[in-house]
């Protein structure tokens, strides 16, 4: 059965000022990828993939740079897990990633070391792997590889804190039958710039749960991509952005269905609190002719908590076979929902409490996928503190 459900509640995909060019949904063109940085021109801001991004602050990262300092990740992990720093010529590096923009290609070409996290086959971890990446001021390259061997089950947290200008790539392999949760937290200090490609391959009958939480930083632009290495694979992609004044948080997803019977489910939410707060969500999903039996759904919700804040939302669904199980997307950007408030208040809950419940619920809808209580609670506390500080 084929079901295509295109539901654009509250009409606009793009909210706020009009933007030159198309903001509606269309077909994502075939992505150009290359390991050679010079195959990508220096962005001018007119390119489809850069047109939402404030480029001025990013200029130093559009060419090869001298690394100012070395970021040394620290970690806490169960004994079964191997974590090591390898040289950039290791065979794992570049095994999943195919750079799709100049910064990603530059980072791959220039990075000297990579952190490799290996989850052994058939092992179910009782505790998460918690990698903390503490930035240091200045320009940096980064590279992380997460290799979950077949039939393993694990949660890996990449916890970004501190201050940095980081161009990075993260490669993730979810082996046959493995069940991997990756949580990437961007809890940076206010001046941070973080540009990264998060490339994942999900193999046969494997399940990926990918959670991206953007809280801190000045410009955070992440491009999660998923490809499937065999049938029966599943990808759940969740994202939460909370942008305040002066923050630009951009998520550009690309899910490539090229093998049969895989599913993808995308739920990205952002809350914007501040006149100059800015979020961008691009959701590209491609279902290739061979990908029969695909099931995919994308949802983007943006909550504008103040005037002037702007959220852009562009879902792109390209379907090249009729033999799919289902495909759809929905996107909505709006202010606080008065009806939700009314409903809660009509049950006796005072307005302030009702408001808190709705906002907390908005965030918790994504945070609930983080089953690591200490992290979940820390993030919720950070959010509530920021909301309360208003």
């Amino acid at each position: 059965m084929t079901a295509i459900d295109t539901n654009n509640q509250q009409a606009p995909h793009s909210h706020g000022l009009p933007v030159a060019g198309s903001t509606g949904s269309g077909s994502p063109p075939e992505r150009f990828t290359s390991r050679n940085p010079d195959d990508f021109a220096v962005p001018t801001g007119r390119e489809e993939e850069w047109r939402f991004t404030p480029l001025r602050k990013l200029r130093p990262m559009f060419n090869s740079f001298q690394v100012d300092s070395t970021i040394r990740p620290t970690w806490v992990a169960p004994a079964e897990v191997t974590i090591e720093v390898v040289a950039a010529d290791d065979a794992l590096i570049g095994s999943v990633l195919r750079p799709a923009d100049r910064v990603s290609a530059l980072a791959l070409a220039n990075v000297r070391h990579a952190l490799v996290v290996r989850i052994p086959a058939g092992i179910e971890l009782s505790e998460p792997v918690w990698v903390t990446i503490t930035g240091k001021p200045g320009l940096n390259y980064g590279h992380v590889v997460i290799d979950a061997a077949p039939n393993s089950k694990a949660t890996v947290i990449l916890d970004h804190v501190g201050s940095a200008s980081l161009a990075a790539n993260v490669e993730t392999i979810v082996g046959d039958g493995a069940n991997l949760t990756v949580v990437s937290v961007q809890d940076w200090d206010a001046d941070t710039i973080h540009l990264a490609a998060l490339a994942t391959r999900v193999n046969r009958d494997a399940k990926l749960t990918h959670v991206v939480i953007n809280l801190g930083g000045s410009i955070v632009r992440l491009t999660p991509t998923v490809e499937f290495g065999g049938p029966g694979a599943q990808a759940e992609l969740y994202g939460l952005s909370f942008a305040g004044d002066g923050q630009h948080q951009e998520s550009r997803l690309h899910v490539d269905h090229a093998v049969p019977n895989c599913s993808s489910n995308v739920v990205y939410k952002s809350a914007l609190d501040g006149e100059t707060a800015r979020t961008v969500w691009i959701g590209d999903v491609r279902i290739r002719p061979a990908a029969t039996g695909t099931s995919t759904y994308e949802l983007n919700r943006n909550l504008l908590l103040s005037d002037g804040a702007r959220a852009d939302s562009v879902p792109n669904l390209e379907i090249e076979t009729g033999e799919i199980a289902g495909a759809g997307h929905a996107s909505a950007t709006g202010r606080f929902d008065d009806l939700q408030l009314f409903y809660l208040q009509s049950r006796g809950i005072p307005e302030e409490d009702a408001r808190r419940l709705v906002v907390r619920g908005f965030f918790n809808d994504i945070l609930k996928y983080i089953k690591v209580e200490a992290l979940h609670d820390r993030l919720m506390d950070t959010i509530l503190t920021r909301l309360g500080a208003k």
Partner: protein
Amino acid sequence: MSTLEIRDLHVSVNAVGADASDTPTEILKGVDLTVNSQETHAIMGPNGSGKSTLAYSIAGHPKYTVTSGQVLLDGQDVLAMTVDERARAGLFLAMQYPVEVPGVSVSNFLRTAATAVRGEAPKLRTWIKEVGDAMKDLEMDKAFAERNVNEGFSGGEKKRHEILQMALLKPKIAILDETDSGLDVDALRVVSQGVNKVRETGVGTLLITHYTRILRYVHPDFVHVFFDGRIVQSGGAELADELETSGYARFGVNETAAAG
């Protein structure tokens, strides 16, 4: 013993026209109705006659503007209260279209509401039993408590969830707006039993419905015919049967006019 008095209530809604003009349209044109504890009043009337508007106006929905008239609960001015104050004063509205609240679990919602209405947090152990029993009465699966409020609920599940809230919040006066619509026969029986159980507590009930089938379970003391923003006829339970057999026309209601 409580009394809800609705006196000559006029209500407008700001209709945003195709030309984006913003003109108030009068929907309720003088509603008079008194509901006492223990009593059950059924309101029946064609689509668009203003039944939900009456219900929402009493609850304080922001979309509706009361232009004149009064609503009193035991002599207290309901219209001067905020939405949550009305609920804490003892009013309850089971909505025709309950609202989804993402990320807020039913259990958290129910406990927050009960705490607000009762003025103190219910003791955890008795509360869990209370919720469990009420859900059992309504044949609701325990798993509901962990789901988000109304999110992905079927039409029937939403209605059960409304009556669950009514059972836990124990209002003085409850307004049920088409609680029976969209229920299959079994669900109708279960939900009606749930309503009847709350009625035993002495609640005064205003039951808005299109169908007499719910009235076979929830017996009304009074039936009112609602048309064009007001009550045009009132009577006993037999009035509902007359409506069933002969439609609204007999009561001076021109249904084509209502649709137009």
